[in-house]
């Protein structure tokens, strides 16, 4: 079985084309069915996000599968192949696996290490399970990719650190206050930026959001837009400030509103509870000197952007470690793929043994017919158990030997010794019943142990 990946992403294609080739607009499952209907395509998964459209296919012949995949792509999106072809990339076998693992790890994302992609990969796999187009190979491939995503997230800092300003503000607030639940947020100014950051704080569990603006009507409108927020008149700024933990200032004022002296005065009433001030206004709303006050943490928009840049740089430095994990997992997958090379031999071997057993039972039928039915059933059971036990070790050995061996010499030897005729490689594996399950056991049921 071979793997073929055909796709395009933000690296190769402009956004207009990516939009045009979004599989979700015409229905992902329809695309999967169209792919699955092709004879050359044994298994198929389509990964479609706003940044990429990729088709993963397991097939016997790359050439015919490629033709079919491209044909489906152009028919499904009603687009000339010549217009998309130069944006497409293609990977085969382990390169395709490596590509998917890198995608799941967030290494191929626009923002390196972003976490959403793993969920999207999972969704793509789930859709193919529903449409029963994924089989044992792609199930295994995608489950491995989930493992890669998880490992990269826990073992490297690839996804750590905020990479947007409002997320940076929230994660700072978390480092100061722990959970945001029960914390009060004050927004000074009724502008868009302040509103967005406050909204985000609120979604992260902030308890109370108060908007203070020179025009109360503006404040009230913004408070309504945030939902669950309240507005307070300009005169109450000091009082609200004293009761707040997080302050976001975003007014258009020309001179600083919160001077050091003013903040110092409110700190006394707060008994030195920490105060986190985020100044996203330009020019500044808060005097820089206010940051010198004990227990005041003052960040302006430049500071937040600087931490975002630092985080991005740190993520880049983690790429090598993430790539190493991808490499390890590709190796594991390669071993599994090789172990599947033994499957036709195993199947043929089992069929051979089963045929012999049946034939012998048939031959002895005239003697056995004298026995009561329970005894006959027992004979059938016992002979089957013997065959299964005889085959247990050869089956496991063939599988594990094949895992480390690329030449297929053992399978070949068994084929010759037992004079087996192997069918087309693993043709029994595309069974839709098995492809709907989660984990797929690549081998026929193992022999049952003695009871």
């Amino acid at each position, binding site marked *: 079985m071979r793997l073929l990946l055909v796709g395009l992403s933000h690296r190769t294609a402009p956004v207009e084309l990516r939009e045009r080739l979004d599989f979700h607009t015409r229905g992902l499952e329809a695309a999967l069915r169209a792919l699955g209907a092709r004879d050359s395509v044994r298994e198929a998964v389509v990964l479609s996000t706003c940044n990429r459209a990729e088709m993963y296919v397991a097939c016997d012949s790359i050439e015919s599968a490629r033709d079919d995949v491209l044909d489906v792509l152009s028919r499904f999106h009603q687009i000339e192949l010549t217009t998309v072809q130069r944006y497409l990339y293609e990977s085969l076998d382990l390169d395709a696996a490596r590509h998917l693992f890198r995608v799941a790890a967030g290494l191929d994302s626009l923002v390196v290490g972003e976490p959403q992609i793993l969920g999207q990969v999972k969704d793509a796999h789930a859709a193919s399970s529903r449409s029963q187009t994924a089989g044992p190979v792609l199930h295994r491939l995608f489950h491995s990719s989930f493992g890669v995503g998880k490992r990269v997230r826990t073992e490297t800092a690839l996804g750590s650190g905020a990479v947007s300003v409002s997320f940076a503000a929230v994660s700072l607030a978390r*480092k100061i206050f*722990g959970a945001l639940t029960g914390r009060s947020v004050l927004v000074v100014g009724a502008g868009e930026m302040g509103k967005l950051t406050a909204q985000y704080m609120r979604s992260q569990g902030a308890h109370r959001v108060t908007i203070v603006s020179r025009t109360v009507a503006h404040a009230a409108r913004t408070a309504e837009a945030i939902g669950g927020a309240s507005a307070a008149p300009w005169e109450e700024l000091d009082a609200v400030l004293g009761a707040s933990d997080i302050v976001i200032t975003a007014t258009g004022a020309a001179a600083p509103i919160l001077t050091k002296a003013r903040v110092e005065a409110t700190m006394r009433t707060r008994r030195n509870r*920490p105060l986190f001030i985020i100044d996203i206004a330009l020019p500044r709303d808060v005097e820089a000197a206010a940051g010198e006050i004990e227990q005041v943490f003052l960040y302006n928009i430049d500071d937040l952007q600087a931490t975002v840049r630092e985080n991005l740089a740190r993520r880049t430095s983690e790429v090598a470690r993430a790539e190493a994990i991808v490499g390890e997992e590709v190796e594991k997958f390669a071993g599994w793929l090789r172990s599947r090379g033994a499957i036709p031999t195993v199947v043929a071997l089992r069929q051979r043994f089963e045929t012999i057993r049946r034939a012998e039972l048939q031959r002895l039928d005239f003697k056995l017919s004298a026995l009561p039915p329970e005894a006959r059933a027992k004979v059938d059971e016992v002979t089957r158990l013997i065959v299964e036990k005889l085959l247990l070790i050869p089956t496991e050995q063939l599988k594990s030997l094949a895992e480390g061996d690329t030449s297929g010499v053992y399978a070949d030897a068994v084929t010759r010794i037992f004079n087996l005729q192997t069918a087309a490689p693993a043709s029994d594996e595309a069974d839709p019943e098995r492809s709907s399950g989660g984990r797929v056991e690549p081998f026929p049921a193992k022999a049952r142990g003695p009871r």
Partner: protein
Amino acid sequence: MNAVPLVLYAVALVAYLWHFARRQPVVGRTATTLLVASALAHTFVVGMQTMEAGHVPVTNASSAISTFVWLLALAYLYTEMTTDERAMGVFILPLLVALQIIPVIEPGVEDRAPVLQGPLFGLHVSSLLFAYASFALACVIGVTYMLLFKEIKAKHLGFFYARLPSLQVLDTMNQRAIVVGWTFLTVGIVIGTIWAGQAQGYAGGDPRVQAMSLEDPKIFVAVLCWAVYSFEAFVARRMGWGGRRTAYLSALGFAIVLLNFVPVSYFLTTSHNF
């Protein structure tokens, strides 16, 4: 016998350092497992010494230090398991290793002077050792608080920012450790006073018992400690002190504790050299 836990603590320290630097969950679990193993081995050592001597091994400075290390390891493990925060281990383990070296290179003979009788004496030392272990934890938490505080203040969010829990959590943990330590310190001092009174009765002629007054450096420093921690636990916050100042105070308090524990015990005191 104290060497076995020492080696184990040292190995655990390496694992904690590794985990702190690379943050691999497997290494973190290994580090905890190693520390649990060290604490178990140490429990065995302390238990053997207790059985051998017939009382808790606290009657000379070396065995008291060993017992202290054991209590600190247990207290830290408790904190780690209840908060699921491993970052503090990097700061606690060096302390364990450094202190455990003392009983290894100078194993004291655990023979109890006739003066040191009665259950009160054991209680006195045990509760003080537990208080000191709590203060050690508070100190380490305070130090990590300061490190994180500095990073956030300086707007340079780096190494500690990624590894430590929030300032709020550190502050709460610090307060809790201080209150627990203060309670045991108070109990230990009160019991010690009662015991000294009793000892006047049956061993009044012993020069060490005679020296038991506030003028003895060991006793004086202990009372000083009590004053510092009382201030931190009950007064500082009412005065509006923030987390950073109380963190400094925790470090200062523990510096006094250490001073009392090692140099004063070995060289200066005339009342507590048994």
